């Protein structure tokens, strides 16, 4: 390794007789590399590489006027409810028909699982509704109504909005939960043993 000549004797021009030694140009770089890697480690650990992403959420205007409000057909609607303990409930339509909603199979529970969960329900309903025709003869669009109960978490809400993006559902809305829905959730929770 290179060494610096620090003695005061050498190097002086006025030293008669002795020729100054040619110093090697090699410098010991070990400490410099040590320091370099220390700093690299520090910056690597403190850097956050993945920037957070955002999801657009566009809320509708509140309107009192009847003609400005969107009407949803019973046949194209799918209502999804978020309960506590990451539970998802759903029923087809808007539950405006008391005969249909008195059916014990009307209100169903599912989960956020990738297969056999709410995604499959959405896909099935979307494809069913796409076969229907409106009065102009065009395929109908499914309208998903999202209602979150007080026990739901933000994650459930975002997951469900994400399902809309995953399945490319263009029309969905978040709606306040009704007392009837709450009651259905409660009785389903009781029968499924969810505390």
């Amino acid at each position, binding site marked *: 390794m290179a060494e610096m000549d620090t003695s005061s004797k050498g190097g002086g021009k006025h030293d008669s007789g002795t020729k100054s030694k040619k110093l090697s140009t090699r410098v010991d770089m070990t400490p410099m590399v040590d320091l370099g890697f220390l700093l690299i480690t520090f910056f690597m650990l403190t850097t956050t590489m993945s920037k957070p992403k955002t999801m657009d959420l566009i809320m509708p205007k509140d309107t009192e006027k009847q003609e400005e409000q969107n009407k949803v057909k019973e046949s194209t609607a799918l209502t999804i409810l978020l309960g506590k303990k990451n539970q998802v409930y759903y029923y087809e339509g808007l539950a405006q028909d008391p005969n249909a909603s008195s059916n014990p199979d009307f209100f169903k529970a599912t989960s956020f699982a990738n297969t056999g969960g709410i995604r499959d329900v959405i896909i099935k309903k979307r494809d069913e509704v796409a076969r229907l025709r409106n009065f102009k003869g065009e395929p109908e669009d499914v309208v998903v109504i999202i209602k979150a109960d007080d026990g739901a978490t933000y*994650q459930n809400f975002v997951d469900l909005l994400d399902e809309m993006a995953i399945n490319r559902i263009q029309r969905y809305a978040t709606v306040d939960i009704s007392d009837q829905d709450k009651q259905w959730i409660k009785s389903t929770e009781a029968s499924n043993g969810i505390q």
Partner: protein
Amino acid sequence: MPKVKMPRKSTLIDMTAMCDVAFLLLTFFMLATKFKPDEPVAVVTPSSINTQLLPDSDVILLTVDKDGRVFFSMDGQPKRKQLIEDLNTNFKLGLGPAEIRNFTIGSSVGSDFKNLKQVLNLSADQRKNSKVETGIPMDSTNNELAIWIEYARSAQGNNNKLKYCIKADNETPYPVIKRILDTFKEKKIQKLNLVTNLESKPAGSAAAIFEAEHQ
């Protein structure tokens, strides 16, 4: 067998190349790093398939922790300074220059106006441990969040590019989120952004097929 004399090799290695690489990496990480001010709350955001980036500027960010405490934050030190000065004069918060400076260079705050002076007097470490910051109140009778949003909007100069972001924890109860959304609705702000992490699109889903078709 004749004895082969191995030449004694020097153990010295030329470290110039290694040193070059080390400093190249060092320069890269130094330039790529952006130090953010210490946040008073830790939030784990949910993940979604959205790939839209959260912008660095023109952002009003509401952070909601898992207990439902709401924190307010905004970019741009001059704008933050103006915001806190406006609030100080209009709501008689009694902040001194030190507290105004603390807010300007700091990150998010989550306290009601009454305790704001006390919160801004604490250091970042003390704030994490103190129980003073109980979140910005947003009851219908005392909706300070609406005031924050309104003043922040005017401090940002009614900028069109301004984005309203909500960064909430996975465990945040939905009623808190609903309350925030309603507050924005009352302020006639319809376009919001939810901060999420990236996750991959599930294979075979409509979004994945759509993406494949449009590439």
